[in-house]
């Protein structure tokens, strides 16, 4: 790993200033993604600004919903009693991510901004438009078994690897951001980008902007929820496909639904039309199968990931059945 200048501060403003001033400076929070990329020479910042001690780690109830500080650890959020009670889908998704050790290090802000795990992105000897714009997408004609079935472009078919973000997408989160010129709020659905012809830009966050918190509105999905993660081993592996599903039921009629998928696109993939299609329907496998068909409209596979065209709808049905208690 190349050496770098290290700066630690407990002032949010000083941290933002330090990164704003230097084009080669980066924030570091838990370091579990950034150090990985630095050790492999994928990124080599000249200056790291340590934000792990900024006073942004609280999980606070708000008049409506909750505010989760960007520095809160993944394990703290997953184990928080209020989150477990009111946002169990988020707790489940976090618990499904990485390992107990990594969750004790990873922060909410860092999790949102983690980069793809695409092998071509990770191997600096191979082409990758995300790592090095203009070199081409190695996965397009290469080994693409982990790759996207929605929202990709011919420039990039990588997927976003986060579990937490799938739940945040389903639960209508908002990302709070501070920059040199002030604060702004970004709806979670708008935060991550599709690759288009700029796959090296993952999100709409500017380089010198700091995520300070994530907020969630009050959620009706407190009971009938399930985060289903399908992976190549039982634990401690990234998702091939994951589904965050929540149902608000009255007897066996669906009042509201939330549904999002991971492992299928360049961003957490919200399934809004499938959610709508569930409203007013009875809880049956047929209802869920129909919603899954709607969710899969427009999906397209590559040479090695055609299995996702079957796996994804089956995972949606299974997650909904488990959420509804009829699995």
């Amino acid at each position, binding site marked *: 790993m190349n050496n770098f200048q*290290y700066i*630690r501060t407990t002032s949010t403003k000083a941290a933002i200033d330090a990164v704003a001033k230097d084009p080669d400076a980066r924030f570091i929070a838990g370091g579990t993604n950034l*150090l990985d990329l630095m*050790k492999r020479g994928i990124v080599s910042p000249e200056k790291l600004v340590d934000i*792990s001690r900024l006073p942004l780690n609280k999980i606070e109830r708000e008049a409506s919903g909750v505010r989760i500080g960007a520095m809160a650890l993944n394990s703290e959020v997953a184990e928080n009693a209020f989150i477990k009670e009111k946002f169990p889908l988020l707790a489940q998704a976090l618990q499904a991510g990485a390992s*107990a050790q*990594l969750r004790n*290090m990873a922060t909410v802000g860092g999790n949102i901004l983690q980069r793809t795990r695409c092998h071509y992105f990770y191997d600096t000897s191979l082409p990758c438009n995300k790592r090095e714009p203009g070199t081409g997408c190695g996965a397009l004609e290469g080994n693409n078994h982990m790759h996207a079935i929605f929202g990709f472009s011919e420039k990039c078919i990588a997927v976003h690897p986060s579990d937490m973000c799938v739940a945040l997408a389903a639960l209508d989160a908002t990302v709070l951001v501070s920059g040199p010129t002030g604060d702004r709020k970004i709806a979670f659905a708008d935060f991550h980008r599709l690759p288009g012809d700029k796959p090296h830009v993952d999100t709409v966050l500017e380089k010198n902007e700091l995520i300070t918190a994530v907020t969630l509105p009050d959620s009706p999905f407190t009971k009938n929820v399930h985060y289903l993660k399908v992976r190549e081993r039982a*634990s401690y592996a990234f998702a091939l496909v994951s589904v965050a599903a929540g149902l608000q039921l009255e007897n066996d009629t669906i009042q509201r639904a939330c549904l999002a998928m991971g492992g299928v696109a360049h961003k957490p993939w919200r399934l809004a039309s499938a959610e709508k299609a569930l409203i007013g329907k009875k809880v049956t496998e047929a209802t869920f199968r129909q919603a899954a068909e709607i969710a899969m409209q427009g999906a397209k596979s590559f040479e090695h990931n055609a299995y996702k065209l079957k796996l994804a709808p089956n995972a949606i049905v299974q997650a909904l059945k488990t959420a509804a208690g009829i699995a």
Partner: protein
Amino acid sequence: MTDHQPDDNNSEGLDESRRDFLKHSSLLTAMALTPSTVLKAASSQWDERLAGAFEKISLSLEVNGTKHSLAIEPRVTLLDLLREQLALTGTKKGCDYGQCGACTVHVDGRRVLACMSLAVMQEGRKVTTIEGLAGGDTLHPMQEAFVKHDGLQCGYCTPGQIMSAVACIREGHANSAEEIQEYMSGNLCRCGAYPNIVAAIMEVKKEGKKL
């Protein structure tokens, strides 16, 4: 270099850019310069010796109850610090990329991966490694249980497994074999000692001793 050659220990002779730099750096606690910034420093007429002196950062850290005052490069991981500077080689380097758990240690009571932690970021914290677990010649109950249940073959993953196992019980995630498997999944064992590791943890949990 410029015509004035300031004395290392005396800030009087500093030119404007250095003065500016020191002002900003004390504001932000800037603590180190990269070699490339050293080059920049030279071109912007800073004194090379001064820049050089910034390469190592002081760090105070408590490891297994002993306080250390150290000087390290910012890029040194906690794992390399423990193994190479403090000669605590019980903590193992399996992958160095957060993928195996062999480097598991406790920082302020939390289990973390030493290979994915920058040592400088641990300033003021308390680190416990496998060497700090036993009380003198008396093995820790988890160590005893690993011996009794044959929780190892080659032993390379064992320090990490034991540190993780102790935390797993303390966190309250050792209530069933399934729960232990899930919460111990961050520790890989190439020898496949998993069933015996789970048995060891179950026994320690059942004994109910305070760990």
